[in-house]
């Protein structure tokens, strides 16, 4: 039974809506930078980049050369052996230089490739894992050496980038050594998994650290003096943050900790762009859970392939065992060579005992639907697709839930996050490209949709913006924005922060914490009684698959009961 609409509503309400949306901070939605399915009008007149002509010859350009790994087949076997208790290589992790010597090019080949680049006037930085070089020079030097013409363009939103015209020419005797180039094309491409809307079944304007701590049993760790002190967590940031936002968070929450550090890669943005909210969200969630931990924001560009150089730097620095990535893009449309180059870096991180948590995406099982509205076919791709790099077999993919709490702030229930009418939801599904890692086993993992490919997510945390985290941040215009924010990019630092406390517990008890946690989480889920370390989410879904007992495509193994899970992980590592 529908009443007939009043015609006057049509025009009058529109004005009110605009006022509401521009005045965030009191339960309304902060402007989300995430591309969303929106207007037909946008499809009819797609925005196109503006050509600016050749990149100035003296313009500094930084890029990476991804190197082939002659030991790639051996690497695959080794990675499987790492989590096989019957293998002599079980938990036999490798320092970056050991990884490089075993799987990478021999010294002579490394020297030949570097020599070629340096002969062209380029500066080459080598890394011990031998997965790639960082290279710097001028556009003119690059044009001459690689036989391309770099040209500058401007995105419809005013971001300048460069692209090569022509295919880079590699000397014949080096073609078996050089896999691809990362960063010659710096067009912004990667998206955060960041969504905003007003909260409902959590107190006030969104989750605050004390509520998160109570709902997910983090409080017991805090009460035991575990607050992240002495620990380091690496945050992969494809934008930047404002230091005063961290100060504001500290004063509002009464928390404090070390100043957040920046490691800026050469291709990092030189000023805040449109995704500062994502970086702020990541930092504030990590700090709310592990306030005394040292957060290092590794900042790079949003170009395809950008994760590789950042993770390479994290591995080489050796400061953090836990990494959080809230960014990605639909796997099907990610350039294969860039994806392969990044997977090498992720594999080197896995081999070094790092755990990389990655957001599984905010568009349910249909991640390709999320891209910018242009006339391109991918905008209208409604086929199921997983998100990269969450679909990497070397990371832990984190999905999102809708959390309800009790009046006293304790946990009540969770659902796999779905917004069917607006297309939002926890990312999950099957990779098109990567096989299932040997460690992904357990109840529910083998199901009627399984096809031998990587399944995601692995775990979940609060991600539905309707039970989102309250944050305040300075946007690219310098305005302070406040409100509840969600997305799997909230669930990801939530899980990473929880594991930082686990790392501290391990350290306190003298237990080495140098193990990628993906295999451990699956092992514990199989060993522990149901519900003892994970909340097994049984309802909701990912817009295609529904949550179910055991592992499922919406919430993986479930969300953490952090203190019991931390205890179980440390006991596992102590065996």
């Amino acid at each position, binding site marked *: 039974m529908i009443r007939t609409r009043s*015609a006057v509503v049509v025009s009058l309400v529109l004005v009110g*809506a605009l006022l509401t949306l521009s005045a965030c901070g009191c339960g309304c939605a902060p402007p989300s930078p995430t591309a*969303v*399915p*929106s207007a037909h009008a946008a499809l009819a007149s797609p925005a196109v980049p503006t050509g600016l002509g050749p990149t100035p010859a003296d313009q500094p350009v930084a890029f990476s050369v991804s190197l082939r790994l002659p030991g790639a087949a051996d690497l695959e076997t080794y990675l499987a052996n790492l989590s096989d208790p019957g293998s002599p290589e079980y938990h036999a992790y490798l320092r970056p230089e050991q990884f490089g010597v075993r799987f990478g090019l021999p010294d002579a080949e490394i020297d030949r490739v570097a020599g070629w680049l340096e002969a062209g006037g380029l500066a080459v930085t080598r890394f011990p894992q031998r997965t790639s070089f960082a290279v710097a020079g001028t556009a003119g030097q690059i044009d001459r050496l690689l036989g391309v013409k770099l040209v500058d363009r401007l995105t419809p939103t005013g971001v300048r980038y460069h692209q090569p015209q022509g295919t880079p020419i590699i000397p014949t005797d080096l073609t078996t050594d050089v896999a691809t180039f990362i960063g010659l094309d710096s067009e912004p491409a990667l998206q955060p998994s960041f969504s905003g809307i007003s909260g*409902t079944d959590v107190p006030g304007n969104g989750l605050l650290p004390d509520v998160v701590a109570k709902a997910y049993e983090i409080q017991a760790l805090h009460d035991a003096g575990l607050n992240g002190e002495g620990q380091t967590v690496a945050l992969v940031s494809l934008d930047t943050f404002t230091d005063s936002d961290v100060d504001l968070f500290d004063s509002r929450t009464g928390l404090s900790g070390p100043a957040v550090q920046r490691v800026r890669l050469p291709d990092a943005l030189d000023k805040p762009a449109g995704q500062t909210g994502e970086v702020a969200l990541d930092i504030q969630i990590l700090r709310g859970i592990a306030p005394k931990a040292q957060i290092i924001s590794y900042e790079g560009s949003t170009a395809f392939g950008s994760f590789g150089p950042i993770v390479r730097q994290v591995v080489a620095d050796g400061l953090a065992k836990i990494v959080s990535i809230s960014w990605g893009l639909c796997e099907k449309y990610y350039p294969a060579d860039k994806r392969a180059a990044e997977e090498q870096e992720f594999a080197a991180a896995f081999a070094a005992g790092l755990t990389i948590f990655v957001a599984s995406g905010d568009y349910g099982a249909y991640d390709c639907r999320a891209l910018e509205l242009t006339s391109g076919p991918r905008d209208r791709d409604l086929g199921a697709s997983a998100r990269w790099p969450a679909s990497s077999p070397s990371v832990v993919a984190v999905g999102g839930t809708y959390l309800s709490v009790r*009046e006293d702030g304790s946990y009540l229930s969770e659902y796999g996050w779905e917004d069917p009418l*607006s297309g939002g*939801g926890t990312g999950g599904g099957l990779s098109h490209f990567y096989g299932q890692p040997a460690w992904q086993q357990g109840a529910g993992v083998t199901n009627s949709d399984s096809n031998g490919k990587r399944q995601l997510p692995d775990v979940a945390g609060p991600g539905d913006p*309707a039970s989102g985290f309250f944050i305040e941040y300075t946007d690219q215009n310098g305005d302070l924005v406040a409100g509840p924010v969600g997305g799997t990019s909230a669930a990801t630092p939530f899980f990473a922060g929880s594991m930082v406390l686990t790392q501290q517990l391990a350290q306190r008890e003298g237990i080495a914490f140098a193990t990628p946690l993906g295999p451990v989480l699956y092992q514990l889920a199989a060993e522990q009684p149901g519900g003892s370390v994970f909340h097994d989410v049984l309802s909701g879904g990912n817009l295609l698959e529904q949550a179910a007992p055991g592992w499922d495509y919406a919430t993986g193994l479930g969300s953490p009961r952090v203190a019991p899970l931390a205890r179980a992980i440390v006991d596992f590592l102590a065996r």
Partner: protein
Amino acid sequence: MPPEVPISNSPPLIAGQVWTSAALGYSFEYDPDNFDLSSPDDKTAILDLNFADGEIVVHGAQGSVSVSQMIEDELATVDTFMIGRTLDNADIDAVLGGSIGYLRGEARVYSGTLLGSNGTPVAPGGITIVAATDGRITAAVIVIVGNPDSLLGDKAQQYVVRQAADQILKTFNWGRSS
């Protein structure tokens, strides 16, 4: 570490306003700051958005009414205030995984021209209908949007209104039998 926290008996936090169908027992939460609610009968709630040109109707029936029949019944009513109603097959408007209260159902999207109370055409309109059943109740949620392609900020009005409707869908409680 301290012993594990015992399970709480504290009642669920209700952050919004709850509306319950007196006849059928289903309920949902809404934010009274964003919606004006009216209820013409004990099975129906109508929520007018105060920040966008949209209206959300939540309607329940006995479970003996099939999901398909429920949709057809609602469409018959839609046709009293919309002319030229046609299926909206635009991928961008597609509803994938339509559900109410986390129970999967059926969803359809239409476009047409909305009529004013005097029967004259007033604006392009978008209609999204989702229906589902738990066996005891069959429920439908109808989202009506005026000028669906107009932009509110950087988003289409249809998207904004449907996003608001999602908040109703996810708090929908089927009541006694669920």
